[in-house]
């Protein structure tokens, strides 16, 4: 058996005594599509912060391609092949769509190369390809800040893919999207899995169901249950901590 792409071992994160994550274990194999759900404050975003190097875990280890990521800088982790999409779309609003993508696909990412070399033809083609995936060709020269919310989300996903990562971490990609846009995003993420490993965090049950993939339920900083969406929905524990509660709130 080949070794997993990403492995989180007994991760704990403590913020001044408050345990945001406790003894979290998770394994992702090459080409997996995995959804992570959990109520607010379950530690979903902290868990991405640990993988991408923004937060150092108090305990435990993160193994990516058989090497530990602990203590590495964010940009090094990004260069190793982990791309991250933030909860609210974070793109460079004052640059055009094309310029945003150009920064994502550029190699190598050193100052001298950016200053001296112009973008290679294969990268220009890649930008065109990325824009066609997310339907933004007609907006190539438009300031990214002028895009609609959904288009910004897609641009950020396209930038992520442009980094050519092995692992895509996608945090709430459908927050604030219309139903139609949500469906398109689900299809997009499904098409990316296989070539890439994709980990999606979201609240939206309909969206997760559409992804049709294994789900991990996070609760109070550790994995409560893993399984398919239908299994998860039948689990009494999960219903109690998450699904049941959210229905009551509605």
């Amino acid at each position: 058996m080949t070794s997993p792409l990403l492995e989180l071992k007994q991760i704990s994160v403590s913020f001044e005594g408050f345990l945001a994550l406790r003894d979290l274990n998770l394994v992702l194999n090459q080409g997996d599509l995995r959804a992570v759900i959990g109520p607010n404050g379950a530690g979903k975003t902290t868990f991405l912060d640990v993988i991408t190097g923004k937060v150092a875990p108090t305990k435990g280890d993160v193994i990516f391609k058989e090497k530990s990521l602990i203590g590495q800088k964010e940009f090094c982790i990004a260069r190793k092949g982990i791309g991250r999409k933030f909860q609210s779309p974070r793109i460079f609003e004052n640059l055009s769509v094309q310029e945003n993508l150009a920064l994502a696909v550029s190699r190598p990412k050193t100052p001298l190369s950016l200053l001296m070399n112009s973008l290679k033809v294969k990268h220009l083609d890649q930008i065109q390809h990325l824009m066609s995936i997310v339907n933004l060709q007609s907006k190539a020269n438009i300031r990214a800040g002028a895009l609609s919310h959904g288009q910004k989300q897609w641009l950020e996903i396209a930038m992520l893919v442009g980094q050519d990562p092995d692992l895509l971490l996608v945090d709430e990609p459908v927050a604030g999207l219309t139903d139609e846009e949500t469906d398109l995003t689900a299809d997009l993420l499904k098409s990316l899995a296989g070539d890439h490993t994709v980990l999606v965090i979201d609240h939206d049950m309909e969206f997760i169901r559409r992804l049709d993939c294994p789900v991990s339920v996070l609760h109070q900083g550790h994995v409560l249950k893993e399984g398919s969406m239908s299994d998860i929905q039948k689990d009494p524990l999960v219903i109690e901590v998450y699904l049941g509660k959210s229905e009551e709130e509605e």
Partner: protein
Amino acid sequence: MSIFSTKKSWINLTIWVLLIALIIAAPSVLPVFRLNLLGRYLSLAIVALGVDLIWGFTGMLSLGQGIFFALGGYCAAMFLQLNSAGEFPNGIPEFFGLYGVEKLPFFWEPFKSSIFTIISIWLIPAIIAGLLGYLVFRNRIKGVYFSILTQAALLVFFNFFNGQQKLINGTNGLKTDVTQLFGQMVGSEIMQRWFFWISAVLVILAWFFARWIVRDRFGNILIGIRDDEARVRFTGYNPVIFKTIIFSIAGGLAGISGALYTVQSGIVSPQFMTVPFSIEMVIWVAVGGRGTLLGAILGAVLINYAKSLVSEALPASWMFIQGGLFILVVTALPEGVLGWIRKDGPKKLLFLLGINKKLETYPSLEVNEQGEVKS
């Protein structure tokens, strides 16, 4: 987009034509006193270009550019002092005698060489800016903390230079106007005309250089750092290196600017490192237009010219006018004068004054008495 950029390039072209016409006409039109002032302001435009690179593009508000400006000035002044020290006792600059110094301090030695001086004018400030910047950026000091830190560094340098009589004549500074260069007095009319031309050419070269830096992806990364540094990091770039490089470049430009300003004003002193002067540099850029480069040049030249004219007429009032101008720009023209022109500001102003008619971009709708649209 294409319409926007052609309009932008038309405005730029117009301003350039005016600027170059001014530079070419000035030596024959202006008396040498005014010409010298213009030359000084053109040299200040170079430090303003650096401020625009680090603040307008990269979002780092440095209040310490005076350090690098003064360093460039000291490099030039030390060379000129040594160049004309032959007739003084011990063959060292005259002021050393006042403090009983008989031997030239070691760091003066290399400034006997003109080549070393020409390189050090930009390289020494650039290296110091790079070192200072690297330490600050590596520790992720940003925003207001960065500004405070640069200002504190400025005060450290000011106090150090102010107190070192035996090394660099302390608070009195180093005079350059009575020194010799190519057998001429630096303060003489012919030399001052030359310095005007050198300043004018260097401003234009500095603009091309700055333009070249920001023209493509390097400039886009700087804008990215300004708008969302975390995103830059997660895209796989190391912001520390980019910030260090641009801060170092701005330091080098400040050094060139300081050297040119020194030879045209006749003295370099710790006064170049006072807090208000470094803040003024930021004001020039803010008034001219952040992130426009050309705006930095316009701001530096126009504000300083206004300063000299106002100071001659109403000596005490300049500080009030400058403060008022800054407040006006921040509140009414947040993108500076050039940003305002580019965004159709003049047209909108004419409309507000009732001189121009507003274009009807939407078909007009019939409205009833309650202000509702009739169907």
